[in-house]
């Protein structure tokens, strides 16, 4: 009787362990695969030539595999989205946490959740059909697809994570702090910005890092609005991101070109890893505080 029960407990335990290990194994497998698949092209092309080469011409007779345009486009695109999106998202979060009436708050939060759930191909589609022509007309350029359109689409896409994570950490600020400030005669606005926001600082920072991660990893939506030509980035120029560089050539690539695409994926992976490390740092800091 007793042994039977133990056997049951142990097998359940083992099943849970195996299920848990699937996640860990996937991460390890993907990391190893990317490293092994990504390194050969880098060693053939040369690390410096690969990372800092400013020309990408993978299908030419004499091919060039410089991914600096992609790296810069990804960095500029994400930074642009952060520069525009963080103030909007941050102030929205402060408003929702501290000022909004319950009904307004409920509606806004549902809208934010919905925004987070929209598939990125839909963002791309709307960007393609509405934003790109609008940019073309507004600035009088032949084609509206380019870095600016990508930045604007990314901005909207990162808003939900910035708003939600900032909101959660603002709402976690103990009410006692705010009461203490108000009781000293500080106005509500002073209280938000001198007490609540500093107390929620690490959560707000984490939300920004999360936004960076979302921005740098996005492929479909930016591919549809960025023009997708491997140029050095400029606001109105057609550009290609790290993600879209992999996605757009993978289906017909072969040989060194295909290997180079894996190397791009590896670079992207390292970026994301770095962002995760930063995120973990802030999350941990939050707990310590």
């Amino acid at each position: 009787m007793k042994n039977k029960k133990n056997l049951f407990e142990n097998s359940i335990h083992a099943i849970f362990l195996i299920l848990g290990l699937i996640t860990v194994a996937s991460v390890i497998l993907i990391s190893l695969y990317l490293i092994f698949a990504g390194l050969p092209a880098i060693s053939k092309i040369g690390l410096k030539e690969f990372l800092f080469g400013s020309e990408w011409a993978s299908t030419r007779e004499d091919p060039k595999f410089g991914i600096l345009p992609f790296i810069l486009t990804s960095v500029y695109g994400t930074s642009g989205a952060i520069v525009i999106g963080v103030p909007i998202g941050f102030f929205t979060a402060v408003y929702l946490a501290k000022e909004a009436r319950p009904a307004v708050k409920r509606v806004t939060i549902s809208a934010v959740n919905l925004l987070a759930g929209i598939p990125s191909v839909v963002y791309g589609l709307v960007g393609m059909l509405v934003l790109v022509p609008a940019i073309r007309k507004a600035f009088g350029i032949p084609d509206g697809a380019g870095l600016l359109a990508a930045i604007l689409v990314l901005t909207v896409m990162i808003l939900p994570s910035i708003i939600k994570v900032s909101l959660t950490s603002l709402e976690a600020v103990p009410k006692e702090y705010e009461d203490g400030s108000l009781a000293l005669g500080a106005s509500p606005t002073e209280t938000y910005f001198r007490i609540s926001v500093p107390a929620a600082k690490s959560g707000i920072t984490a939300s920004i890092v999360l936004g960076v991660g979302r921005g740098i990893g996005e492929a479909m939506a930016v591919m549809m609005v960025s023009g997708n030509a491997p140029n050095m980035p400029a606001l109105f120029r057609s550009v290609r991101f790290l993600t879209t560089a992999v996605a757009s050539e993978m289906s017909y690539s072969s040989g060194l070109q295909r290997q180079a695409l894996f190397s791009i994926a590896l670079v992207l992976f390292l970026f994301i890893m770095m962002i995760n490390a930063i995120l973990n740092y802030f999350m941990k800091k939050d707990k310590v505080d």
Partner: protein
Amino acid sequence: MNVFSIENMNLWYGESHALKDINLDIEEKSITALIGPSGCGKSTFIKSLNRMNDLIPNVKIEGNIKYKGHDIYSPDVDVNELRREIGMVFQKPNPFPMSIYDNVAYGPRTHGIRSKAMLDEIVEKSLQNAAIWDEVKDRLKKSALGLSGGQQQRLCIARALAVEPRVLLMDEPTSALDPISTAKVEELAVELKNNYSIIMVTHNMQQAARISDYTAFFFLGELIEMSNTDLLFSKPSDKRTEDYITGRFG
């Protein structure tokens, strides 16, 4: 001189009638203790005096609360200015998550003082008046959250004093503290009444008897009686007061 005079005050939380027809005068530069069993309305009452009840939705207040002859709920009152004059110390010590120095300097900075020398002076004076200067003077730049509960509460008193209030509202300021810290805060309150009018909610009748000049007994939202502390504890005029102070309930 009365610092507060309250006439026919009623307060509702939504439907519930939390304070009923309160009439009460509070003498300046003295300690007034508010006693009564939990839920009797004494904390609600004290929070009406600096309008912290404004922050709670669905509160309705009727009647007159006059601070120095002026109705604090009249529309021309600047709530922030009012709260600066009527400081508050909370039940649970609530230092801000910043340095000891910044905690005390928070109020003065809010009210426009920028000069480092002036802030230094205010911080030192306030911490001295709150009898905690000697314990913290070597670690002013350290986080206030590293202090003990009793030290945190005295820091909160210092923080309240730093904006030079006239009145200090204390909502069970020692209920979260150990006996030694409690004694220190009590001693401090007696010291402070020379310059400030203190209104203190307390659960502890010995505390009220020890340090207050006047005591008001609240029960079920009503003010049952208020008088000289010695008188209230030796010859209560209402049966309910007598029952409460002799420990028959509460």
